[in-house]
Each structure stands twice: as C-alpha cells, then as structure tokens.
C-alpha cells in the first residue's frame, strides 16, 4: 500500500513539476526560492495571525514577485514560493510541519508562526536545522534564556513595554492628572510575565498599583473587576490583555459607567478593528510600535501598499515588524545569498533600516526599538511615549466613551 502511495506521489509530483515548469516560463524560468511556514487559519490564534502576520507575508511575496522575484546574490531574481499550512493553533501540528519543512521539503528559508507560545514551540526546530527565524510576534522575557542562536525577536519585550507604561504614568502622576493605578491581567504566561514586569517597572518609577486583579483566558464578564476598580477610585486602568478580553473590558467599562482618565491596555488596542469597533476609541492608550507617520523610510508606502492589497490597514504595533522581518531577510539574501550560516552572521552583525525603524539584534533580541505607548487620536494611533519618538502628545483625561 505504501509503495503504491509512493508511486502515486511520484507521478503526481512529476506532473506538478511539469506544470510548474510550464508556469515557470512567466518567471523567466528561474527556480523559485522556497519559503516554509505555518500560520493559524483556525483556532484561537487565527485572529492575531490574520491581522498581523498573514497579510504581510502575502504582501511581501506579491511585491517581490512583481519585480521578478527575490534577489539572490549571484543568481539574479527568483520567484518566492510559499509552502505553508494552517497549524490549527496547535503547537504539535506546527512543530511537525517545521520538521517536515527542514527534512523533507528542504526549504530555503523559514518564516515564523504567530504568537509567543507558537514561536517558543517551533524555534528549537528551526535552530536544530540552522534556519534563522525572525519572530515579529514573540513577547517574553524568557526568550533570552532559550539559548537558541538562530531565533530572533523583533518586538519590544515585557520589560521594555512596561518600562514605557511606567514612564508615561509617572509623568501623568507628576502632572497631577492621575493618582490611583490598578492592573487587570490575563492569567496565562503572557499576562503573568507582563504583570511581573509591570510590578518592577512601577516600583522603579516610584509608583504603586492600588489593586491588581487577574482573570482567566476566555473570560466572559469583567464587570466585577471594573466595578471594583471604579469603587476604589482608580483613575488609571492598566489592562494586560489579549484582544478578546481587551474588547470585553472596553465595552463593559462603558456599560458600568466608568471612564477613568487613563485607559491603557496591551494587545488589541493597536488594531484598526478596535478603533472602528469603539467609534474612534478616542483617547484609549495601548502598546505601540509604529504608525504611518513615523520617520522610518518606506513607512507610508508600506501602509498604502497594505491597504491596497488587503483593503485593511496594518495594525499599529506588530504588523510593521512582521514586514520589517521580511525586509531584513530580503536584504540578507541579496547580500549573502541563501547560505543560512552567512545569513545568520549578517543578521547578528548588521543594523537594518526597516519600515519599523532601525533594528539591531544583540543575542537575538532587537535592542533598537524601545517600549512605546500609543493613543488613538482622531483615527490615528499616535505614539505618545517616549517623547523622542512621539508623533502626538497624550490627551489626559480621555474623553467620554463614544
């Protein structure tokens, strides 16, 4: 039976290859550069994957192929071919597929899946086979403890993000605009880590949270937490959230008639969907990293291309870093070819100019992008902290919920 199946596969593979060559004429007969990855099209990770990573992968592929392909040193342009599946938000499915990509498909390059836990799961595989993996959606202080030289994290990590949160809160308190901070965090690895970083960062800033509450993933009612904060006179809400609970907390704040001067939350706030869902979400703050007004070369062009291809805006935090990771790969391949140890050496030693600003890695962590706080103001997620990178000034107290 297995012999037959193998025969069948050979035949179909042959046919597919023949078709490929026929189609290949359009590409000037260059052999494609094969790039493998998984993204979650189903399951809990699909929301984030579909907003932050998937659209950037396909945008980059389409842009490169429109120019005739990816420029490979010494070989001219070769079209990009993706080999990918839906990992169904299952770690083991993703790990198996990355193993297959390395040993069976022998792809030229790999792109990471979406989310911290997924990146943690597949990074050891990529590392084992020597594939540089540039993760734009992995947030954890533990990344540096992993000792995986081929894994790189582009986003700001919890300590930097919470440092920025504490920075802006300290200034607002000094201005007398807030006095009582309270934190609600989602009770999983991500929220727990952010909360630990928050405790340290607040302490260093001479601040203290009057109340800290956790809630489980998939929570359906946050009104008890919000009512508690309201009763305690909290005027700065800090939510260490995922998107669904972020949206739940925001809608319930209005429903329990609570409008603290500062509403600052984590994942989800930077999504254009959030702005549209809450009629502008005027004055809401969250983790930021990018918007089309930043000074980085190509930022506006990237924004326009994303809107044109997908009819939706990129999010204002990690999307640009997903695209930046591809710009980094593109430049490395143009300069050193598809030799992966050489790519790694270049990633380790170069400061890259990307749509998300300069990016330089030290021991796998991007040290060039500081933690940032953004605020929705008239349709744009303005960066309001740190001041050196700000595209707007913070509006506190925030206006009433729309």
């Amino acid at each position, binding site marked *: 039976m297995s012999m037959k199946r193998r025969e069948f596969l050979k035949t179909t593979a042959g046919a597919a290859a023949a078709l490929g060559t026929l189609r290949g004429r359009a590409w000037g007969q260059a052999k494609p550069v094969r790039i493998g990855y998984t993204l979650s099209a189903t399951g809990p990770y699909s929301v984030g994957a579909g907003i932050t990573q998937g659209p950037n992968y396909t945008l980059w592929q389409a842009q490169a192929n429109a120019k005739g392909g990816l420029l490979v040193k010494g070989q001219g342009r070769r079209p990009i071919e993706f080999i990918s599946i839906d990992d169904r938000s299952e770690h083991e499915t993703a790990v198996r597929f990355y193993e297959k990509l390395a040993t069976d498909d022998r792809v030229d390059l790999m792109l990471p899946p979406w989310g911290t836990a997924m990146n943690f799961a597949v990074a050891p595989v990529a590392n084992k086979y020597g594939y540089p993996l540039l993760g734009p959606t992995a947030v954890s202080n533990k990344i540096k403890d992993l000792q995986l030289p081929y894994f790189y994290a582009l986003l700001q990590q919890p300590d930097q993000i919470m440092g920025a949160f504490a920075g802006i809160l300290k200034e607002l308190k000094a201005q007398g605009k807030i006095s009582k901070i309270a934190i609600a965090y989602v009770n999983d690895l991500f929220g727990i880590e952010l909360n630990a970083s928050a405790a340290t960062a607040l302490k260093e800033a001479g601040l203290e949270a009057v109340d800290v509450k956790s809630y489980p993933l998939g929570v359906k009612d946050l*009104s*008890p937490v919000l009512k508690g904060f309201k009763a305690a006179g909290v005027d700065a809400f800090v939510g260490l959230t995922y998107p669904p609970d972020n949206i739940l907390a925001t809608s319930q704040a209005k429903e329990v008639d609570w409008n603290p001067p500062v509403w600052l939350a984590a994942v989800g706030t930077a999504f254009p969907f959030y702005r549209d869902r809450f009629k502008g979400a005027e004055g809401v703050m969250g983790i930021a990293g990018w918007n089309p007004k930043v000074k980085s070369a190509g930022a506006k062009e990237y924004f326009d291309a994303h809107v044109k291809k997908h009819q939706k805006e990129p999010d204002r935090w990690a999307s640009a870093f997903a695209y930046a990771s591809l710009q980094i790969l593109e430049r490395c391949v143009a300069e050193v070819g598809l030799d992966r140890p050489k790519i790694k050496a270049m990633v380790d030693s170069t400061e890259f100019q990307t749509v998300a600003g300069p990016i330089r890695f030290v021991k796998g962590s991007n040290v060039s992008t500081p933690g940032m706080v953004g605020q929705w103001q008239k349709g744009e997620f303005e960066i309001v902290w740190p001041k050196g990178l700000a595209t707007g000034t913070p509006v506190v107290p925030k206006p009433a919920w729309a």
Partner: protein
Amino acid sequence: MGLSPTLVVDIVVGGLITGGIYALVALGLNLQYGLMRVLNVAHGEFLMMGAYLTYSLHTAWGVNPLLTLLITGPASFGAGLVLHRLLYARVLAGGEAAEALESRSLLLSFGLLFVLQNAALLLWSADLKGYSYLAVPLRFLGSVFPANRLVAAAVALAVSLAFYVFLQRSFLGKAIRALMQDPEGAQLAGIDLSRVHGLCFGIGIAMSAVTGSLISMLFELTPFIGLPYTVTALVVVILGGLGNVVGSLLGGLILGLVETASVYLAASDIRLIASYAVLSLILILKPSGLFGR
C-alpha cells in the same frame, strides 16, 4: 470583604443574567440528549451560527438584533429539521441500545462541528466581529448593570418559560414529555417517535441559535466561540438532570449564581473551578442530577 447590600445585588442580578443564558442553551441540549440520546457536541456551533446571522443582519441591513430572533429562530429550526431528516434519523433508526445511538450520534455531531466551524470561517473569516447594541449602563438597587445583558437574559428566560408552558399545556408538549418518561409506552399510545424527534431536534437547535443571537449583543464573535457553551450546557444538563426541563432551567440559574458569586467573592480565575466543583459534588451526592428522578 463584607457582604454589603450592593454586593448582594451585584451577585444575584449578575448571576441571573449569566444563568438565564446558560438555561436557554442547556434547555436546547437537554431536549436533544434527554429525549433522543443525541449528544450534540455541535450544539454550540449552532449558537455561533445564530450569532453571526444576527451580526450580519444588524451590520449589513441595520436590523434590530432583537428582531433578528424572529429570523434566526425559524431558520435554525428549519435547518434542524433538515439535518435530522438527512443525517440523524438514519443514524437513530433501528431500535438499538442507547449506548450505540449515543456513540454514533456523537461521531456525527463531531463531524458537524468541523463543517460548521469551517463554513463560518469561509463566510466571516477568523477576524473578530462585533457591534454595540444597548451598551449603556442601567442603574437600579444601588448598582449599575449593562442594559444589553439584562435584555439578553430577560429574553432568554422568557423563551425558556414559554417553552416550559408549551410542554405543559400543548398536545405536542405532552407527547414530548411522554416520550421522555417512557419511550415505548408513548409509542404504544400512538406517538410518532421519528416526527417528535425531528421537531425536538429543530427546537433544540433553534434555542441554541437564538441564544447565539442574544450573545452577539455582548461578545465579539469568532468561528470558535461555540464549544465552551456546549461544555457549559452539558454541565447544566447533568446538574439539573437528564431530560428534566425544569432542572435545566434551575440548573442554569444555579450555575450562573455560583459562578458570579465566586468571581465577586474570590477572583475571576475561580469561576471554572467553582462550576466544576458544583458538578463534582452533584455527581457524588446525587448522580441523577439535582432534579433527576
């Protein structure tokens, strides 16, 4: 923490809000499981479909979410009848042991779960979808509650009570109760088993879809919101007793109260632990359910 009057109001009203929704979704499942031994694990998927239908009707044509119940209810009832005729009637035909029917219908429902999830994925994508309706605070008894949750729970309870009256008063309702109590005897008395099964399957699914329509006013939607509701419904069905309509109603309310009390008095993380603790206690002390015979 002292038990102030406001806190008591928060717990009781909050619990009834959550419980009212649990009761309706559990009632639908109980009708299928209690009567036909169809453990419909795709029950929550019909809830998800109902929610998306309301979302689309409201956002595309501006239909009032509450009015969409008049569409999602009958449409899902019809879909239930067709599904029963095409799929479940064949599996359930041939009077075999309850265990065999249970396992076969379970497999079928699992398949249905994947089909429905992927259909929703194709139609609406995995992006979060949601809208605001009655998202205003309502003050009474010294506390404040979201208007949309109160309305959703009130409608859910009204539908549940209407169904209870239907079971007690109408001829068809009596036939359903007769089949639940004694399938053989009821058939001897001339009740058409297959026809009543089909109707009950349709009603069960309609209840799930209607709950979904109500829930779409409160939460963001993804194609994967259904399963947790199936699990909760199952807990309520076991809590209230298999095939016991009043049990499902009260079981839902009790579970809602227990969960809400645990959240207010301890922490949000305790919610699931509290509900499973209640379930375990019931299984140990009274395995047939609180109101089971």
